[in-house]
């Protein structure tokens, strides 16, 4: 009896599936990538997300506006200050709460320091993805100085919760500007070193040039924002396009680069760090005296009731445009809070970009767009 040849699978036999993550050293948290490979070439990439889902949006509906404050910095744990500020500012805008000048500038200072810390961390982690160990320790050394500075203001090192409706809960010390300038000087002395060790290194350039290119059109259709978009030649920065907080009063540039490869993204981030230093220097000059908070315990003591309305508020987080859609029906709790997180869109474009590269490049590309998985899952 001749057996019928069984139909095996629909997929071609020369490919195989490799399950990368959720526990993999270079998927930056709990991202799972289902790779279809031909040899070492990627044929298809399927990101699977949701392993770190905590239901932040649903939690927002069940808490007062103030009670949601600690949640904000836990979405993107590397730039918590920015997210914390964004929530405060969104609520302030909808409720019409005035913010003292000093608090506005202080928020910018803290946010830019946080952006610096986030980018420094990224450089280290990215080089680690590419197999270089030492730059990580150097960037973390610098990041440590920034974290120490932020700790002296906020009392925390990673998940900050200093923002309050109408200001900040803790004031900057009298010697904060002096200490901040010391840190900035240390950073500025380091740029040359990073250039020597990373940017100029022939192996790094070989690994990143021409890798992970996506076009402006792809960026638009997926909603890519942040450094990845600016590295694709689009000068889009929420701080410039829809200025918020105290940003309109500071001078800074938006670095762009046309190549849109991993090297361009690295370059853009380094330039952004330099711009952040510039902003902080101006902000320290202009830091006004006065109160840091309009009214203590606003929103927590009295259970703030927001007027009926819908408010969209966007800020430029370390990874791109972060938006909050806040719907209030007049109660003490939001009717709906929707968070538009940058990493989600930035990761989505990868499906289009990855095929054709090698496994080693996958790590290089995934690292270069700087995704934070808890932010995607939220």
């Amino acid at each position, binding site marked *: 009896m001749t057996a019928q040849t069984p139909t095996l699978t629909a997929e071609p036999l020369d490919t195989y599936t490799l399950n990368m993550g959720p526990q993999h050293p270079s998927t930056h948290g709990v991202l799972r990538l289902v790779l279809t490979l031909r040899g070492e070439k990627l044929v298809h990439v399927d990101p699977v997300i949701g392993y770190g889902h905590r239901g932040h949006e649903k939690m927002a509906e069940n808490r007062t506006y103030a009670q949601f404050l600690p949640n904000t910095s836990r979405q993107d744990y590397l730039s918590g200050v920015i997210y914390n500020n964004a929530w405060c500012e969104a609520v302030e805008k909808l409720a019409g709460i005035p913010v003292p000048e000093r608090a506005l500038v202080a928020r910018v200072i803290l946010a830019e320091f946080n952006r610096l810390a986030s980018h420094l961390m990224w450089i280290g982690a990215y080089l680690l993805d590419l197999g270089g160990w030492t730059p990580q320790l150097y960037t973390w050394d610098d990041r440590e100085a920034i974290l120490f500075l932020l700790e002296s203001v906020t009392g925390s090192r990673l998940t900050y919760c200093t923002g309050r409706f109408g200001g900040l809960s803790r004031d900057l010390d009298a010697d904060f500007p002096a200490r901040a300038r010391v840190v900035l000087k240390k950073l500025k002395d380091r740029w040359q070193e990073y250039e020597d060790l990373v940017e100029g290194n022939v192996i790094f350039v070989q690994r990143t040039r021409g890798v992970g290119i996506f076009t402006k059109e792809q960026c638009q259709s997926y909603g890519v924002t942040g450094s990845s978009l600016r590295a694709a030649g689009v000068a889009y920065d929420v701080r410039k396009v829809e200025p918020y907080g105290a940003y309109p009063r500071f001078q800074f540039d938006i670095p762009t680069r046309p190549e849109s490869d991993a090297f361009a993204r690295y370059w853009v981030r380094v330039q952004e760090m330099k711009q952040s230093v510039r902003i902080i220097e101006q902000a320290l000059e202009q830091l006004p005296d006065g109160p840091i908070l309009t009214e203590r315990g606003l929103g927590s003591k009295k259970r703030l009731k927001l007027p009926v309305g819908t408010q969209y508020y966007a800020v430029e987080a370390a990874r791109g445009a972060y938006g909050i859609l806040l719907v209030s029906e007049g109660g003490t709790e939001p009717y709906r809070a929707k968070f538009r997180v940058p990493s989600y869109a930035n990761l989505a474009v990868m499906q289009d970009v990855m095929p054709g590269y090698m496994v080693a490049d996958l*790590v290089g590309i995934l690292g270069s767009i700087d995704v934070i998985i808890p932010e995607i899952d939220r």
Partner: protein
Amino acid sequence: MTLLTGLRDWIAGFLGEFLATWLLGAALIMTFLAFNVLFLVLAERKLAGHFQRRVGPMEVGPHGSLQSIADMIKLLGKQILTPVATDRFVYLLAPLMVFLPTLCVASLIPLTGAEAFANQPYGLLVIIALSGVTVLSIFMAGWSSNNKYAVLGGMRSVSQVIAYEIPVLLAALSVVMIAQTTNLRQIVEAQANTHWYVLYQPIAALLFFIGITAETNRAPFDIPEAESELVGGFHTEYSGMRFAMFFFAEYTNMLVLGALGATLFLGGWLGPWLPGPVWLLLKTYAVIFVLIWVRWTFPRLRFDQLMSFAWKLLIPVALLNLVITAILVHGVG
């Protein structure tokens, strides 16, 4: 020495003169290599720490000097897992086989000019041939683990070692041309009369160094075990002492190839005041220091870049170097 001779005579009582010498020699080499690995692991961690403004291990022993021993005890005590659906025989054989070649090679490096040490007429060829065997066991480990990451790591390792053995061999050949012998002892003795060959053959020395970096799977050529891509590469599925075997082999390989480099280019045991083996060890550790320094500075190359670097740059340069050496040696002098 009298202790050793006594021991040898005692063993010779049951096994005969030849076997006793053989066993005792092997045991001595093994002991030295084991201690060397402990020292190298500690040195690597300490140096890595200081390169990165850290301090490395500090807690066990003064300045963490006993950390390797503590790690060894930890690895010994760990559970040894064998994953389901492995090719069991090959899986178990691979960690045993991985350091046999390095062990053989270690016994072939001449330690001093004394008559007793490693006087093989084709010593260099035997060494190069044997060091190629290591890759077989790496591939065995990768293949038998029944893990895709391990297979990728094993595959990468095979193509990498094959590609990088050629420049190593060609670089060694240009030394052979000057020394007119493949006997390692005579190569060193030839350097005693002239200068160290690194001065005559700087390009060959550089090629040799790059080659041994790749052969020992160290950064920037640590592609078979690139942990950000392949988790652990070929030894992903190995745990406890079996993993330690691969570790042991890797560091022993560093020592052996470093010693070979010192012999070929840095004058082997030659040097004033100190005894020969000490000089050889010092030179070897100098080579290893540079290997460590390089590892803690550079990112990793991509696989295809690694291959094109070997085939398109290193091998042509090595061949050119060989031809020029041949012309200079036979045409001019």
